[in-house]
């Protein structure tokens, strides 16, 4: 499971963490039943505040991706539905494609938002 946090991203650090874990689960990089690193360890690795990681874990729990328990930490309980998985994959591919075309994630987010209104 690879997590990369970029300053140029329009998403918050917690959003970046939770999206990338979600993508890793949907790709099978992290299997159901596997544990995620403890929030403390992940925060230390990424040099971010532990509460930021906890916020990301909390949103993953709400999305039904992980279960949080005292003592046992975060365990992956389920991936996204195949349809959602395809969207996640497509978004990741689109971000990479946009980067190659010189479109920053922030601009890309703007483009996506613009589409919503049409």
């Amino acid at each position: 499971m690879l997590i990369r946090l970029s300053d140029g991203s329009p998403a918050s650090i917690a959003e970046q963490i939770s999206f990338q874990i979600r993508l890793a689960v949907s790709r099978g990089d992290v299997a159901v039943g596997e544990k995620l690193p403890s929030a403390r360890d992940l925060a230390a690795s990424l040099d971010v505040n532990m509460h930021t990681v906890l916020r990301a874990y909390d949103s993953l729990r709400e999305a039904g991706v992980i279960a949080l328990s005292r003592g046992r930490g975060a365990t992956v309980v389920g991936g996204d539905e195949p349809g959602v998985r395809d969207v996640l994959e497509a978004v990741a591919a689109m971000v990479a494609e946009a980067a190659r075309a010189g479109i920053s994630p922030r601009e890309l987010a703007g483009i996506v938002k613009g589409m919503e209104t049409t």
Partner: protein
Amino acid sequence: MRRISGAGLRRSAAVVLQILPLIAMGAAALVFAPRLGPTMATHWSGFAMEPDGYGSTWMSFWISAAIAAAVTAIAVAVVLMGSASRETRKMASAATLIGAFPSTVWIVLAGTTADAGSPESADLGARLGFLVIPFLVATVVFLLFPVIPETEDEVLSAAQGVPEPLESLAPNERLVWSRTITSPLLVAIAVVLVASAVALGVAAARSADAGLWTTCATLTFVALSVLALSPARLTIDRFGVRLRSGAFGIPLIRIPLSDIDVVSAETIEPVQWGGWGYRFSGRGRAYVIRRGSGVVVHRAGGSVVAVTVRDAEEAAAAANALRERSRVQQGS
């Protein structure tokens, strides 16, 4: 990513067969227990009907069970983690044979005494024929074990060498690569070892034999050592490469970023690194729980450390990117 192949099914079937003698031994002990006294006949000379050797019933049970469990655990390990080669197949069936023998012998002896009603009147007779069972089990395991010609082996065709560092790691970008490494087999072995240790502890408490306590302590130590290895977590981040035991949290491997020369993704052949487990060999230090992809860290001092892990290429690329950036930032 994980698929069940024909070869996997054959290996699983072989494992089921391998542990059958142990299960049968436990079942036999339960069935025979009401008819067994503290001693049973253990030896006959020539074709004599009367036994000329006797042994403690339950002491022999626990010792046979411990030996059978230990050897069978190794045999199961070979079947599950060994390469699909003829050599491994031979090793697997030989270990199966040795592992199945103590349980079969105990079942035959206990059954003889149980059916006779007393150890003195026990008559082995045709029961000797049951000793063919370990050979049958070993033969079926031999036949079940899948052998793939080396050139077709998928694992061997895995990418080798130093992968390109991840592209465009920005100066202030934060990165972590993390993965749990679990071997269900090591966990199973640890469970069997703990169970044997508890059983031996019970046996030791009941008997005056001090040797049993020593065996119990040794088994406990081995069980904890196995548990310390799986699950583990490999983390690659701004601090470097770290492998930590999941059960006890103790660090197994810790290499600071500045100490890394380069990290490559390679196919780890357990034989070349001194076997399975946490190994020290002429090649270097290694954490090996299976045969297949792994990261090999080449340290600045020239020493080498290997860890078997899936997605080794991505892990190596992440480590190299971090190392590269820290070099640039330090201006070295």
